[in-house]
């Protein structure tokens, strides 16, 4: 991974964490999981898969460190989501809508895993009011953001203006 890509990835993750913990935490209807979305979008870039899994793990760990749930929970979830994204990413660039749906489905898998593993480990802090609604709202929000930002994000990270033109 080139230095510029590293800087871009780190900056995008920090920006996602800051926006997620401030702007989107104050809205009840539009509640994306920005960090998970960045991880999913990174899987569409040319970064090596092994590195991507590491990035996903560290991104999850960063959110764990800032949250109140057990350390390592999101790290595991984000790593699994990244792996699934890597296994299915060739289907994501068929069209803009497909990309959005792909990101939405992966987010859904991620949040279900988060709640399931959290429940198994007794993390009541993740199971507050509206958890069932959030299982739907978070993937929809990520789907919408993916529709808008995936092509731009991939082009910036890869520095490839031809990426994701949906030919």
């Amino acid at each position, binding site marked *: 991974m080139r230095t510029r890509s590293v800087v871009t990835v780190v900056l995008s993750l920090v920006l996602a964490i800051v926006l997620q913990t401030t702007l989107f935490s104050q809205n009840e209807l539009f509640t994306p999981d920005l960090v998970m979305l960045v991880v999913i979008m990174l899987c569409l870039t040319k970064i090596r898969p092994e590195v991507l899994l590491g990035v996903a793990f560290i991104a999850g760990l960063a959110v764990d460190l800032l949250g109140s*749930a057990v350390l390592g929970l999101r790290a595991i979830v984000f790593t699994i989501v990244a792996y699934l994204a890597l296994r299915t990413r060739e289907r994501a660039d068929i069209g803009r809508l497909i990309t959005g749906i792909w990101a939405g489905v992966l987010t859904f898998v991620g949040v279900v895993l988060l709640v399931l593993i959290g429940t198994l480990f007794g993390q009541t802090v993740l199971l*507050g009011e509206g958890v069932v609604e959030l299982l739907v709202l978070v993937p929809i929000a990520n789907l919408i953001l993916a529709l808008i930002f995936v092509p731009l994000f991939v082009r910036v990270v890869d520095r490839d203006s031809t990426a994701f033109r949906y030919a």
Partner: protein
Amino acid sequence: MLNRQPGNRTLPTLISLLVIGLLLMTFDIRSEGTGVTSTLRSGAQAIVAPLQKGAALIVTPVADAFDSMTNVVSLREQNLALQAEIDELDARLVAIQDDLALFEFYEQLYDLEATGSELGRTPAQVIGQPDAFDGALIIDKGSSDGIVVGQPVIDTSGYAVGSVLQVSPGSATIVPITVGPSGVAVAVGNQVGEVLPQVNTDDMRLELSEAEEPVFAGERVVTSSGSVRFPAGIPVGEVIADAAPGNDTLNTQVRPYVEPATLRLVVVLAWPPDPITPLTPDSTTTTAPTSTTVPEDGTTSTTSNGDG
């Protein structure tokens, strides 16, 4: 089309990371959030807190404006309801002021002096939440403002919110009682028990062991003197369903007064008070004699015989 299949090392990498993740989870649970993990969390918070505070300065007004626009109809109704509530509270305030004056009068009469009841209070702004699922709140005050792990948090009306889970120099994380990992010792009337968080709702389950009397909807639930997380007497919520004891135990639902997700300001209490700090020796409090008069028309007025 993308044609970059995961390499041969992807699966071993995944498995290794999952094992590391599970070990971290086990370690964190076993250490109960203290030690190395606590230091790591504080460090991460210290790094991100300035960015969050900066972002909160910009996004909070934007988010509030957006909320106001989307909720303009309900805001009008809310304003009317709040106005009615203000009128009612004004009336109660007059009654409470009268009680207070009477209380001070008795204090003087019997030469009583309240000690240790004044808790240090640190108001703080809620700057965010970790994510949509995590019910914790991040506030803009931390250890440099005197906040320490475990301190109770109330809202500006004095209702119980939660307790401090993590603290860094410039920020702290609060876990509300509605999602907290453990219950809160409470009292309903003269019966004591515990309120516990529930899944997918802010309502809490009230369990009264050794219950002898029924409880009724609308009864106030406050923290009990047996609580190790809150001072006694902090209002928690109200009972929302009548219940009678069966086999010495009583279970019912409690609606907390506070909805944590809507909080913008909270107050951190310095409780328990620092046991090392001595009380001011030989402190004398001079209170002006106060008398309460009840005129014939039934209204009550308070007169201070001091310099007022």
